[in-house]
């Protein structure tokens, strides 16, 4: 197997986890993967305008509250769609089974936006007239897409390092963006809007292996030609 294939095969082997088994990956492995992701993920102006909150194996109560943020948002989105005529019914308030990984996992990474002060190099650039928007809390919503691209790069790198150690990962992006709703249920560790939730552990069941999914209609990606346009 060539080294090129090994990276590709590793990345293509990732699947969404429906249920993790009860084994807990050693914290040292998680720390090393986080270090490598921090080390190798680039950031505009070296700002890294986000913060990764790690909920470990004992934090089941906080994970349950995070799951509430996901489930309630899902219900609200369906209700709003009904009101706007975009849907004719809701899923009836049933919790999405593929959000279970948020509640039951050894490790949950909650990644939120976070303004950052410039480093020494950029402090000098600011004196010379550069605008360092990542330092301004009032601008968090303005630069959220840049932060989100960078968070995407961070979680992908983190996923790769965890997959190398045969630790599985899953993501969820369905949750309330309003940080006040998180504070209301006691999740007060973050000050700014969430960007992504990612869980890690050893898989018991993949989503793709659930009979309803495995035997159902094809759940495929868009065609390559629909994604890429040569100008």
């Amino acid at each position, binding site marked *: 197997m060539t080294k090129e294939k090994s990276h590709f095969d590793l990345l293509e082997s990732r699947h969404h986890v429906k249920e993790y088994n009860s084994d807990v990956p050693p914290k040292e492995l998680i720390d090393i993967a986080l270090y490598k992701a921090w080390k190798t993920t680039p950031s505009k102006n070296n700002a890294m305008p986000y913060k990764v909150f790690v909920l470990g194996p004992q934090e089941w109560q906080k994970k349950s509250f995070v799951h509430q943020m996901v489930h309630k948002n899902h219900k609200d989105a369906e209700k*709003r769609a009904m009101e706007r005529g975009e849907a004719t019914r809701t899923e009836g308030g049933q919790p999405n089974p593929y959000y279970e990984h948020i509640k039951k996992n050894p490790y949950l990474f909650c990644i939120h936006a976070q303004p950052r002060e410039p480093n020494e190099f950029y402090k000098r650039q600011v004196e010379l007239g550069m605008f360092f928007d990542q330092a301004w809390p009032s601008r968090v919503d303005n630069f959220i897409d840049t932060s989100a*691209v960078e968070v995407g790069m961070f979680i992908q790198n983190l996923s790769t390092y965890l997959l190398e150690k045969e630790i599985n990962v899953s993501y969820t992006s369905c949750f309330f963006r309003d940080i006040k709703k998180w504070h209301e249920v006691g999740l007060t560790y973050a000050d700014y809007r969430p960007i992504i939730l990612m869980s890690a552990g050893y898989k018991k069941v993949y989503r793709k292996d659930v009979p309803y999914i495995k035997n159902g209609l094809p759940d495929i990606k868009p065609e390559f030609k629909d994604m890429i346009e040569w100008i």
Partner: protein
Amino acid sequence: MNTLDTLMKRKHVRKYKDKVIPNETINHLLEKTWKATSSKNNFMAYKIHVLDNTKEFEKQLVWYKCVSKQMASENEAASKGEIEKPQGKPNQYYNHIKENSHLLIFTSRVCEPNDFVKETIKDGHIAHEMYPEYVNDIIDNTALEVGLFISHLTLFCMEENIDVSYTACFPRQVEKWFNLPFIEQRPISLMSLGYGEEYRYDVLKKKGQLKKDYKPSMDTIISWE
């Protein structure tokens, strides 16, 4: 080479060599990346516009948009008292946008659901990716997925010793891209590819500024609760 060593090779390019990457190589890398990258509900609600080495004029227009955005941001910040006065000159590290082998422009994309998602919609599922009016509402998730794609593509490029650089300073409003009519939805990221001749790292090193341009420490970014 392991993933860490492969990714540690990446440095922002100040200037690319004239050497051109074959279009077939770029297409192969993009196809591998497409296969390896996951997406919520398999929508992949973004599109990648590829400009090869023959598209100099279009790249010049994109570069001009980056510089205009930089100037506009500085002028606005100065008017609000957030900086004392604007720099008033183009950022030299945007040059990779106009001089490269290939430039990728990532934009949002309005999608059709696949057969599986169509069934879930009948059961009450709502998919915002299908509606142009929600492009801005879901931009954080679309941008995050673009980050996943870029991260994979970077890894595959590094394996082939192809350098890449990114720029996030450009106007987000589609109407400001009127002279590049293939841009139909909100732009999300710019990424150039080529073979590096000079890196930003080397410029800072020569000037003795490398140690001042550090990341936030790891314990600033990661917090165990």
